[in-house]
C-alpha cells in the first residue's frame, strides 16, 4: 500500500507542480525517494518534528500548493492534532495527511505506535475527510483523488506493505464518498474498510460455505459517510455486520447503529472493532487483532 501510494503520487507530482511531500524523519518508500531526487524543492523533511510538518503543509496550501504530510499514523495525526484541527481543518485547506500503519499494524512496537483511535479522532474534526483503502488498488484510486481534490483536508489512512489485492473483481469502481459494493448478495451484508477487509472476506467465504448469500461493502470513505448507501445495506439484508480495525467509540459501527435506529431498520446488526483498551501484547498483527477479539472465527461465532 505504501509503495502504491508512492508510485501514484510520483506520477501525479511529475505533472502537477503544486504537489509536495512533507515528511518527519521517515524513510520515504519507493517512488517518494525518487520524487525527492527529481523534485528536491517539493520534498521537505522536517526531522523528528511533526507539529511543524503540519504547519508547513498548511502554509504551503495557503499559497496554492497541495502538500501531503506523511509519517507513521500516530505521529501524523495524534502528535500534531491541534495543528491539524486549527491550521488545516479550521482553515479548510486541501492538505492530505497520510498515516502509515493505521490501527494496530505495528503490533510489536506497542501502543505508542498503534493508531487505534485514529478513525474517531479524524472523523471528529469538522471539514476533515477520512479515507481508508482496503487494498493497493483502492490505495491507488484514493491517492489519485487526493492529488486533485479541492474540497479540504483529508486523512488518508494506509497500512504498510504487502497487503493483498482484494478488489480486482469488485462490482463497482472506487468513488469518493460512496459505499463501494465489492460483491452483491441477498442475506448478509458485511461492511468493512482498511486491510481488515481480508478478514471480512474470509468471514464472507465461510458464510457462503454454509449456504448464505453475502454482500461485501468497502466503506473506504468513513467521512463523509455515504448515508444513503448504509441505509440501503441495512434495508436490503436481514443481517448486517460491521468490521473495523479501530477503537469502538465514535467509529463506523456506532454510526451504523445510529442510522439503523433512525430508520427503524429491521435487520440484525453486529459490530466488531478493537477493544477500548491498550492490550500490552507484542505478537504478530493477527495475534494482536485476535486479542482484541478480531478474528474470522470469533466474528463467525459472534454472528451465528
Amino acid at each position, binding site marked *: 500500500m505504501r509503495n502504491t501510494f508512492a508510485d501514484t503520487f510520483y506520477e501525479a507530482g511529475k505533472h502537477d507542480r503544486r504537489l509536495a511531500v512533507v515528511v518527519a*524523519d521517515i524513510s520515504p518508500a519507493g517512488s517518494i525517494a525518487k520524487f525527492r531526487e527529481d523534485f528536491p524543492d517539493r520534498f521537505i523533511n522536517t526531522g523528528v518534528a511533526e507539529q511543524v510538518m503540519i504547519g508547513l503543509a498548511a502554509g504551503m496550501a495557503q499559497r496554492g500548493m497541495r502538500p501531503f504530510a506523511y509519517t507513521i499514523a500516530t505521529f501524523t495525526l495524534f502528535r500534531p492534532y491541534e495543528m491539524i484541527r486549527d491550521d488545516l481543518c479550521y482553515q479548510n485547506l486541501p492538505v492530505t495527511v497520510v498515516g502509515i500503519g493505521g490501527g494496530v499494524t505495528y503490533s510489536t512496537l506497542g*501502543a505508542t505506535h498503534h493508531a487505534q483511535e485514529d478513525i474517531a479522532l479524524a472523523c471528529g474534526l469538522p471539514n476533515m475527510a477520512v479515507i481508508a483503502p482496503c487494498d493497493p488498488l483502492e490505495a491507488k484510486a484514493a491517492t489519485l483523488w487526493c492529488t486533485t481534490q479541492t474540497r479540504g483536508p483529508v486523512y488518508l489512512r494506509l497500512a504498510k506493505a504487502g497487503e493483498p489485492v482484494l478488489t480486482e473483481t469488485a462490482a463497482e469502481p472506487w468513488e469518493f464518498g460512496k459505499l463501494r459494493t465489492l460483491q452483491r448478495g441477498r442475506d448478509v451484508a458485511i461492511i468493512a474498510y482498511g486491510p481488515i477487509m481480508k478478514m471480512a472476506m474470509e468471514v464472507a467465504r465461510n458464510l457462503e460455505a454454509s449456504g448464505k448469500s453475502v454482500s461485501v461493502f468497502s466503506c473506504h470513505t468513513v467521512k463523509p459517510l455515504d448515508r444513503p448507501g448504509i441505509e440501503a445495506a441495512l434495508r436490503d439484508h436481514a443481517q448486517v455486520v460491521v468490521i473495523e480495525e479501530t477503537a469502538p467509540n465514535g467509529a463506523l459501527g456506532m454510526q451504523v447503529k445510529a442510522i439503523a435506529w433512525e430508520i427503524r431498520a429491521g435487520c440484525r446488526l453486529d459490530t466488531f472493532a478493537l477493544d477500548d483498551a491498550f492490550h500490552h501484547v507484542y*505478537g504478530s498483527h493477527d495475534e494482536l487483532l485476535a486479542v482484541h477479539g478480531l478474528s474470522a472465527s470469533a466474528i463467525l461465532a459472534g454472528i451465528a
Partner: protein
Amino acid sequence: MIPNAFDVGQARRRCLDWRRRILEVSQQVTALHVAPAFSCIEMVDAIYFGLMRKDAAGALRDGFVMSKGHGVMAQYVVLEALGILERQDLDEYCTAKGRLGAHPDYGNPGIEASTGSLGHGLGLACGMAYADRIQGTDRMTYCILGDGEMQEGSIWEAIMMAPNLGLSNLVAFVDFNDFQGLGRTRETHPHFYPVAEKVESFGWEAIDLDGHDSAGVVDAVRNRKGGRPLMVVGRTVKGKGVSYMENVAIWHYRSPNKDEYVQALAELAAAAAEIPA
C-alpha cells in the same frame, strides 16, 4: 575530585556482553533496533553501574527513563543481568506470550515510562525529579535522549522548564550519534548546532564528551558543578562495536542474518581479547 571506583576493564567487558546478548535476541525476530541500542550502551552501563545507587536490600534507588524508547534493548539486557528482568522475558521478546515489546512499557519490571513516541521522556523525567524534590526524596533521575529526538519541540519545552523547577537531581544524556531515521542529523538540521551551548543558555549545566568512554561519563557526572539540571552530550557512533553497522543507516531497524551475526560475534570476541586482564 571524587575517586572513581568504576573499573574500566570490567565496563568494557560488560558492554561487549550487552552487545552479544542483543545480537542473540536479534536472531529471534525479523527486526529490532540494534544500532540505536549499540550507540547508547556505554552510557546506559555507566548509569546503572557507575551512577545509580542501591538501597540496603540491593534495589535501585535512582530512576531511569529511556526517552529514545527504540533504544530499550540496551536497557533490557542490563535489567536482565541485574535480575530485574528474567531470561525468559528476553527469550519471549516481541512474541504474544511475552511481556517485552520493541518499546518500553511502564509496569514491566525496571521500566519507569512508556516511551517510543519521541519527545516524551524528558518531560516525564522532569515531573519525576520535581516530585522527588518537593517530597524530599533523595533520588536522581537519569534520562537518555536521541539527537534526532532533540528536534521535537516538546524536548525544548522540558529543557526550558527543568531549571525553573530547580532540578539539580536530573541528568539527561544525549546519544549524539549524528543519525536519525532519515540519514545524518547534521544534514537534516545543519543549523541546530552546537547543542551543549544551546542547552546551557537555557540554564542547564552541559558537558560534551565521548559517549563510549564509560569512565569518562561517570567522572563527568560525579564531578559536575551541580545545583542545576545537567545535560551530558555524549558523542557516539550509531551501531558502535560491529564494523558493518557503524554509521550505516539501514541498521536503525534490522536484524543481522546468520552470516552477519557470526561476523558480529567474531568482532566482539576480538575486541574482548584486547581488554587488559
